[in-house]
């Protein structure tokens, strides 16, 4: 809304004047506009707003047993709060003798580990969340 036309604010001010409302707040990506009735006129205030974070749920691509660490290693693949790049192996799915790597679809921070170590999951089940 940074490139809003002035006539839109004018139009909204006029509509506001015709109501009982004292305050109209409009939120958009990155910005909030407040229109306050001030006597016969309207006060306009603009506030910048930090971008709302989006969360990606990483899901199982198949049935399997979730592994938080590789069978040969003891340390976990990721921890909550850890930064990962796209392609980072964040979990493993064991299916019989096979182990499939689950990779981060984008860069971000691991915000939540949903499926427990050695839990059996189905196709599409959430494994973890990346913000």
């Amino acid at each position, binding site marked *: 809304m940074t490139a809003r036309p002035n006539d839109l604010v004018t139009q909204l001010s006029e509509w506001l004047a015709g109501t009982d409302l004292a305050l109209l707040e409009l939120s958009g990506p990155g910005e909030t506009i407040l229109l306050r009735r001030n006597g016969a006129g309207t006060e306009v205030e603009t506030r910048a707003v930090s971008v709302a974070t989006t969360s990606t749920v990483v899901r199982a691509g198949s049935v399997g047993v979730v592994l938080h660490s*590789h069978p040969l290693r003891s340390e976990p693949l990721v921890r909550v709060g850890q930064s990962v790049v796209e392609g980072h192996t964040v979990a493993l799915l064991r299916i019989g003798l*096979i182990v499939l790597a689950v990779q981060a679809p984008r860069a971000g921070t691991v915000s939540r580990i949903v499926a427990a170590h050695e839990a059996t999951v189905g196709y599409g089940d959430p494994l973890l969340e990346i913000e």
Partner: protein
Amino acid sequence: MIEIVTAGALTTVQDRGRYGCMRWGVGSAGAMDGVALAIGNILLGNAEHRAAIEVQVFPFRVRFSSESAFAITGADCAAHLDGLALMPWSVHTARAGQELHLGTPQGGAVRTSRAYVCLPGGVDVPVVLHSRSTQLRGAFGGLEGRPLRQGDTLCAGTASSADKPGLLGLVPPDVALPLRCDGLAAVRVLPAAEYDKYTATSQAAFWRNAWKITPQSDRYGYRLSGDEPLKAVAPMEMRSHGIVPGVIQVPPDGQPIVQMRDAQPTGGYPKVGTVIEADLWRLGQAPIGSRIRFVETTWDAALDALDELQAWLADVGRQVGLHRNTRSAA
């Protein structure tokens, strides 16, 4: 194509070995861990016997000059591709220009020492006497019959397929087929011709004691060291006879030497036993400084072990075949 950026001593191209040439004094050579080699090939959809790079001194670095799939099996050596951590026992894809780095083998439940870098279609070097394995004494096979060094380039046998092989890996054989004795890595042994010529005390010591793999150990043979050297009832004069990898010889000092893949095809020392074929891969991974136990077995049990190993490999082949066309798991 890949280019060697850093290679330690005795990094060689090996396939599963050269057979049928002992009549000319040519031993088998071949991968010290034949199971890791087979798995790397299976993961890439190769025939199991294709050649790979055997790495036993780390770090090891290669640069991919074109996009390629590859597999790393054997020792978990903290592999990185341009800084991105790779899972062990898995297939990966490198883009042109990316550099693969293998570090020091990590500890784990079972200590390992050799890693295998496998390429689509295998490492493409000429076949010499039915095999691509490097024969160091005599200098033939592999890449010009010698260890790899910086600047060498190697090609894959086939171009990478367009569809990426997915993020495919395997539960390692150490986990799937464990064998330990009193907490140590163990291998099964069949007594050899001269077993009965050792004192009862020595026979018991052979099975009971842990044997340390000394620094004088390599692809030719493992010199072992134990608390109780083996004593023969009487000195023995042996004639030269054929031997195979796994034969455990006893020189005059009583400390055994296990013949490995690059051993001479004939020997003249007394033999106390031979590691069974089904367990040679375990022995091939045992690092210098580690200790092993010998477990006595029978002919039938030894063949059962071989059947079990081959059945597991067949299962792996089937399951990998099902998954090789699967999209990524996420």
